[in-house]
């Protein structure tokens, strides 16, 4: 009965656009969106570089990146916490328990995923396409840009996967954000806290929004893969 009661109250919160729910959801989207955007800006060129350059240890590097796909979120949280804690090497930035720290954590978390999937997206572009571009007089960067465009659906899919992992993780956001109400409280940390406090309704409402985001992402991915 408690679940049913919580569910109906959650629907109420959603249809009435409860300001607290909307603020938390909005903060989640902004933090994870920013992480995803910044991570993409770093990882897409870096992935191109790794893919197009031949160097020693390339295979080992790619294997390492793929291993880090499964990196536990709390491990990233711990790393950022140690780095940015008051006594840590980057403590002078004083950004621990702010959205900035959360964004940094999420960038670290999703970068391996973005790198790995972008590299495999680029590998999907045949040698012949690259040769054709070279033949037609493309310079180094022009070739890289063309190959990124050739693989654009697969690259975009990688970006979407990165966003999905960022918005759904809780460990890192909790550890480096601290779940401070009105500042660093995002959907996942709120669900975790409110549920343990017994406020099932808010958790369910946020859970539904998270699932909706997941659904939208899924539809977008399916659309892309059908192209």
């Amino acid at each position, binding site marked *: 009965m408690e679940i049913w009661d919580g569910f109906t109250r959650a629907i109420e919160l959603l249809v009435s656009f409860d300001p607290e729910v909307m603020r938390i959801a909005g903060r989640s989207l902004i933090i994870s969106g920013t992480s995803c955007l910044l991570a993409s800006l770093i990882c897409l060129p870096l992935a191109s570089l790794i893919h197009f350059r031949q160097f020693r240890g390339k295979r080992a590097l790619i294997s390492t990146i793929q291993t880090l796909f499964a990196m536990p979120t709390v491990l990233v949280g711990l790393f950022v916490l140690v780095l940015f804690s008051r006594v840590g090497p980057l403590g002078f930035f004083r950004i621990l328990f702010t959205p900035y720290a959360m964004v940094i954590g999420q960038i670290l978390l999703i970068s391996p995923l973005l790198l790995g999937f972008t590299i495999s997206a680029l590998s999907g572009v*045949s040698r*012949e*396409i690259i*040769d*054709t*571009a*070279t*033949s*037609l*007089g*493309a*310079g180094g960067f*022009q070739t890289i840009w*063309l190959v990124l*465009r*050739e693989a654009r659906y697969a690259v975009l899919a990688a970006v979407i996967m990165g966003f999905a992992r960022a918005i759904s993780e809780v460990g890192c956001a909790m550890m480096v954000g601290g779940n401070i109400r009105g500042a660093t409280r995002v959907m996942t940390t709120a669900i975790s806290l409110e549920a343990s406090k017994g406020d099932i309704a808010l958790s369910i409402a946020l859970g539904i929004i998270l699932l909706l985001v997941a659904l939208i992402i899924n539809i977008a991915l399916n659309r892309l893969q059908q192209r």
Partner: protein
Amino acid sequence: MTLIKVTGVTHKYDGRPVLQNINLSVDRGDMFALIGPTGAGKTTLLRIVDLLEVPGAGEIYFDGVRIPQSGKQRLEIRRRISFIHQKPQVFNLSVYDNIACGLRWRGIEKNKIVSKVDHILEMVGLEGYESRNARTLSGGEAQRVALARSMVLEPEVLLLDEPTANLDPVSTTKIEQLIQQIATQRNTTMIMATHDMHQGQQLASRIGVLLGGELIQTGNATDIFHSPQNEQVAHFVGMENILEGVIVANDEGIATVNIDGVAIQAISSYPVGKQVYTCIRPEDITLALSSTKSSARNCFQAKITRITFIGPLTRVEIDCGFRMLALVTKISAAELNLQAGAKVHATFKATAVHIIERKASQ
């Protein structure tokens, strides 16, 4: 004037030699055909000329300039050359963007690009296809996009690698017409690789035969098809009658060759005692029911051993002391009522016989 010069080019893939000491020069405005079977190294040679690959040894000269092994100059030279690959590789972009990309990479102004692309689309007959994704096109259409994409750059050199290998006969004809049109209109220098010797014969002003990584013979179509330099080339260019013999007499350039006890007259300067291959193109042999008076020096009574029909032609295998193959039209085969076991007279001129030296090792 020599535009492209290849000297002593040798190349290996994983230790396996694919090109051996290739020397080749192509004049400006020439249409050069590289013919050879699959795996002879044609594509590799084109890739090296397009500066996509650096040869293991040897030099490439373009317009008198020696090409360095790396550096910016390669890109500059490459931008004067275009390469149409065997399988048309269109980018996953619109037809317009496909054709415009090379111009954009060269930093051409936008309005100039628009007019150039429009013009070339018209030339290859793809007007109205601008916004179609090039990946949705048929093989023939994609090959035309590839051709347009290269032609719009107005290259000095066009390299074509089996441009019609994957196409149906109608598309093949279209592409061949376009190639000829380009060759005459723009005086573009072309090197075309093909395993189809007839295509080479039809389109090219000069032909090179590439066999097993070696450029065995270069010359015009008549040289290659009627005077192949060795047995391998003879085989490849369709000399189906290659008979081993020995020269037994030579009377001022008219040699008599003994083949399994039968004497054949041929034009040759080889001396008596020389081991030779005697080559006769099957279409140069005339078959008749009775021994007609003819200026041809070689006339033999023969027995038909086998008849096969291929398209408009009939292949007649005959035995006149040695085995030969003759090609006659279907109509004359019917008129002569050719049948296996029947007796015919086979006639061919001494000039139709091509003599190749047979080395002891062969």
